């Protein structure tokens, strides 16, 4: 079967529906301000997508995805900040040509690790490699020693806390608590006006679909099935000749790289990056998006992220104090009542009715539902 490599037929329909929504419906229905909000939400969808592979399939709960989102975002922000800090733009500073926050902190020369970020090629490589290698190191240190489950989750959370403290503390090098603000141009192209926002939105949607296809490929490969197998019977996989640690490291790294791409797009779309997207609270929020969407569903994660964020924006506009309680309550409700999230509701209740209406000519196994978890034939 040639379609088993990437997607089953119903999954393909699901991808096309999402593509139609993101490429046609939302741009036509929303004004630029709202569309830019969606672009911001979608940057988290990259993180949620990685969590589906890492947490949903591999059973590795990471409460520190903000670290990788932040690393990707900061790499991109460093490039943009350098471009915004040309000698001409910063001639009122005591040291022109360096970012403003460095000047405020009495730094008189660009630190060595900032210099390569003058190059866009280097920056793009760094967006992928810095978080990827960092995840590799954490993963190797933890999984080779068989640290897993709750302990792993707590350690990732500690890493998120440490990185936040580091960024806030090293104000002169990172911009501190304010982050990197006032990002203006990408290779001379202004990223702030409306038409740039629209171009960036479509570019981001394209990247998101590239990541969705990679996730689909991983899921339908034997590696995807090994991740599912490991989740329940780690020892059986180990004694079938696999190095379980290597597979966990792979899942963790791919989740880190997806998160980093999201972070880089965030810096471009929103025009700043700050430590408030790195720490424990945003990391846990990202897990909630995945849980609400359905942690076993690649497309569910995207819908979950968009819906929770829409709710967040509209509710926190009217009841700012209540929002966090609402989010916590939502998480508890989803885990207790619908452990497979929106995708589970779709697959269990809505899709069967739709197929009945259409006349049941489509095979089962929903696109948001998960045929691996269902044990439906993949042959």
């Amino acid at each position: 079967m040639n379609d088993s490599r990437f997607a089953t037929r119903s999954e393909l329909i699901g991808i096309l529906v999402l593509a139609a929504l993101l490429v046609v419906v939302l741009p036509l229905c929303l004004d630029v301000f709202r569309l830019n909000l969606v672009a911001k939400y979608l940057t988290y969808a990259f993180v949620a997508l990685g969590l589906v592979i890492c947490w949903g399939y591999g059973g590795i709960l990471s409460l520190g995805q903000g670290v990788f989102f932040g690393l990707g975002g900061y790499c991109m922000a460093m490039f943009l900040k350098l471009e915004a800090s040309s000698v001409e733009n910063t001639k009122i500073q005591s040291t022109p040509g360096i970012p403003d926050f460095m000047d405020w902190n009495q730094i008189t020369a660009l630190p060595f690790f900032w210099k390569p970020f003058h190059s866009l090629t280097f920056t793009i490589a760094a967006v992928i490699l810095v978080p990827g290698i960092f995840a590799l190191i954490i993963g190797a240190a933890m999984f080779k020693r068989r640290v897993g489950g709750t302990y792993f989750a707590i350690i990732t959370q500690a890493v998120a806390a440490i990185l936040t403290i580091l960024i806030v503390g090293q104000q002169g090098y990172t911009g501190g608590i304010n982050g990197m603000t006032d990002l203006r141009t990408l290779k001379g192209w202004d990223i702030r006006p409306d038409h740039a926002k629209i171009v960036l939105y479509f570019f981001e949607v394209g990247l998101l679909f590239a990541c969705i296809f990679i996730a689909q490929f991983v899921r339908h490969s034997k590696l995807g099935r090994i991740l599912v197998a490991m989740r329940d019977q780690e020892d059986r996989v180990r004694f079938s000749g696999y190095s379980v640690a290597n597979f966990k490291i792979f899942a963790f790294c791919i989740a880190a790289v997806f998160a980093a791409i999201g972070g880089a797009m965030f810096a471009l779309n929103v025009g700043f990056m700050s430590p408030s997207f790195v720490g424990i609270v945003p990391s846990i929020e990202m897990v909630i998006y995945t849980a609400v969407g359905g942690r076993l569903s690649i497309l569910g994660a995207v819908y979950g992220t968009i819906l929770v964020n829409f709710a967040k924006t509209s509710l926190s506009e009217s009841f700012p104090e209540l929002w966090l309680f609402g989010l916590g309550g939502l998480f508890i409700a989803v885990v207790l009542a619908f452990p497979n999230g929106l995708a589970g509701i779709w697959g269990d209740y809505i899709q069967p009715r739709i197929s009945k209406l259409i006349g049941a000519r489509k095979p089962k196994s929903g696109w948001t539902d998960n045929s691996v978890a269902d044990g439906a034939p993949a042959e």
Partner: protein
Amino acid sequence: MLIGQQPKPFLLSVEGLTVSFDGFKAVNDLSFYVEENEIRVIIGPNGAGKTTVLDLICGKTKATSGSIEFRGKDLTKLKENQIVKAGVGRKFQTPSIYDDLTVFENLEISYPRGRTVFGALTFTRDAAVRDRVHEVAEMIFLKDRLNMSAALLSHGQKQWLEIGMLLIQDPDLLMLDEPVAGMSVSERAKTAELLNRIIKDRSVLVIEHDMKFVEDIAHKVTVLHQGQILSEGTMEKVKNDPKVIEVYLGH
């Protein structure tokens, strides 16, 4: 004891094997040898160290001292997945299968190809894989259940599935921990028949309590008691050993 003097016909030589957990010696200076194409059954009362011996051979537990030589390799120095690659397969006491996958996928994961991360990403389900899975599924009586979720199998069928997963690995030494526990009488008979069929070209090490089943399959029996060998030999010899009758068979 014959230390270091064994010629090579043995597939597995366990010598002076000891493991202690906080001072408690679960296996104490144990030595035994398994030949090619032999079915060896290990029996003994609860807590005798039977499962620990299998854990030591497959690398799940690290030995405190002693050696486990298999085909010229010292297994105590290898990692679990390297031990599998060397040709040792292990079935656990409770059926360890992947409930979320189909019977076909369960068997496919054990197929000895694409065991690295990259290999698993690029693994293709070609005719060789399909044929082998079908062949083994037929052996383990699950031919018409290949597309069924493994969670839906009965207890006995899950045990067979795990045996099948080991067969696909094609190990030279197959270790089974209580393969017929919890099976019905007819399932036991079928399992004995299955085991007798699959021992061609390989050695099997079995832990079992069911004496009828042991008599059916064993070439040689090792009786463990408090981490040491109490008696070893044919079923006939072991059955009539007064020490064995006292600590194990008598009650």
